[in-house]
């Protein structure tokens, strides 16, 4: 694998680290199985691409992309806590609705951003010779900032209340936590991160496409599962770190698999590899536990 291909894999891995942090909040912290991601990721991309194409500042475009994602998460959570729609179903409804909304926002199935300003542009030379290094570097800074902000939030009074909401809602209410509000806020935060990832993604890929969200949730979940398999911990700052490592590792493994000619895999095999990887990561902890039990008996 060439250094450029490696950095390319890292770049996408970093973007999906943001997605994975969002998925961590919904699936793990709030215990809310949320598929909105497949709609909120392209939503963030669509909003950002439309604003950038309209001549607006790319950072502002990222902000509004994240804001749009927050609203979509809020709607999913509201469908569940207020209208009592099953979590999974509520998120599927929002995901489907977002497909139409994304088409409306862009006015077309795709929107090229070639030559438009991006958040990376100020650091890239005129001949684009260093973009393969600059883009992952800028993304790394954003991901580290997001991780630290999340770690601080979940160590705060409100953050602790949010974790309690997911772990034991009845106990949380008995301690005076407004659990419904926590679910609404957490889902908004989760999808804001995912949409921000979408907004950054369109700027690295040179355009937005309405179908770019397909499989987002699976990749995010894969990263979370790989992370917690490799680095099991109950400490939140370790969990967020593991999630980021999981996302990077996942993209690297994919890149290696696709680049190894002797395996004979091609780009269209991506989803199959993802399914195998996630399946393997799910089975691994059980195998480990089984081995440990056997070891215990022998001693």
């Amino acid at each position, binding site marked *: 694998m060439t250094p450029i291909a490696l950095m390319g894999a890292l770049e996408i891995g970093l973007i999906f680290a943001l997605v994975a942090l969002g998925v961590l909040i919904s699936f793990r912290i709030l215990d809310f199985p949320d598929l909105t991601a497949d709609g909120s990721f392209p939503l963030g991309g669509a909003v950002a691409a439309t604003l950038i194409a309209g001549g607006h500042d790319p950072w502002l475009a990222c902000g509004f992309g994240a804001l749009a994602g927050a609203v979509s998460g809020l709607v999913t959570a509201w469908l569940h806590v207020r209208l009592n729609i099953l979590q999974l179903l509520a998120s599927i409804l929002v995901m489907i609705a977002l497909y139409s909304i994304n088409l409306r926002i862009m006015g077309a199935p795709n929107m090229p951003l070639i030559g438009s300003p991006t958040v990376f542009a100020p650091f890239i030379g005129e001949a684009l010779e260093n973009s393969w290094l600059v883009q992952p570097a800028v993304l790394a800074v954003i991901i580290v900032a997001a991780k630290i902000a999340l770690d601080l939030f979940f160590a705060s009074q409100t953050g602790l209340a949010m974790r309690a909401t997911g772990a034991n809602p*009845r106990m949380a*209410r008995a301690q005076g*936590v407004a659990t419904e509000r926590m679910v609404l806020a957490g889902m908004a935060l989760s999808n804001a991160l995912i949409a921000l990832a979408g907004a950054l993604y369109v700027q690295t890929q040179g355009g937005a496409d309405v179908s770019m969200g397909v499989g987002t949730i699976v990749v995010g979940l894969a990263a979370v599962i790989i992370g917690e398999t490799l680095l099991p911990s109950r400490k939140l700052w370790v969990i967020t770190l593991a999630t980021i490592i999981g996302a990077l590792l996942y993209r690297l493994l994919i890149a290696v698999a696709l680049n190894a000619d002797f395996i004979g895999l091609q780009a269209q095999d991506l989803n199959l590899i993802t399914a195998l990887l996630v399946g393997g990561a799910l089975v691994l902890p059980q195998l480990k536990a089984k081995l440990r039990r056997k070891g215990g008996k022998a001693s």
Partner: protein
Amino acid sequence: MMRAEQLFKTFNPGTPIENPVLRGLSLTIESGQFVTVIGSNGAGKSTLLNAISGDLFVDSGSLHIDEQDVTRVPAWQRAGMVARVFQDPMAGTCEGLSIEENMALAWHRGRSRGFGRAIRAEQRELFRDKLAMLKLGLENRLADRIDLLSGGQRQAVSLLMASLQPSRILLLDEHTAALDPKTAAFVLELTDRIVQENKLTAMMVTHSMRQALDHGHRTVMLHQGRVVLDVSGDERKQMQVSDLLAMFEKTRGEQIDDDALLLG
């Protein structure tokens, strides 16, 4: 002070499994009073407790805590007035969080939560001191996950958590039922101590007539969703479990067939 007036609650109304649990229950608990509540299965003990905590709303009747009408106030908004310890040790603490994180949650019960650190150094000191009171060695395990503790240890921590902030009423829901007799005795003794030291108003639901008479100032018996017996003072001091049984049978004019009530 807690005042419940004419509480009615029916589960599954209008269906074949319709179940009228509370049928005009009235009960007033004065400030500083420790009331024990007994009754057979289905008498309405848990429903009364959940109504006071706000986990469920009654169909009719009113609930006041210190003159404030809380009949329609959701559980989380009542939390500043109501502290509680659950029957299931798992239910009262937050699995996956550490001992100190659980205590920090309880330390903010009924207070507004901001974005400041949940656990500061002075709180950690306070938690350590409180835990040291238990003499279980937990003061050195602040960062341990709470699910590593035994049921008795978790109930003891739950009691501490309930007393970290002032409350108008402490609800104890058969909080020793899931423990072995020795641990149950320890948790009960701790309960008495915490209630006395903090001069708490408390309501303890129990399955055991023995416990009901040995703890607190006043004993109330529920049957079919109403208060059928209410003893306190000297009358209660001289009372034996057998007297309680006799009074119950006289009042209701029927035999008790709930073994748990007799054997406890």
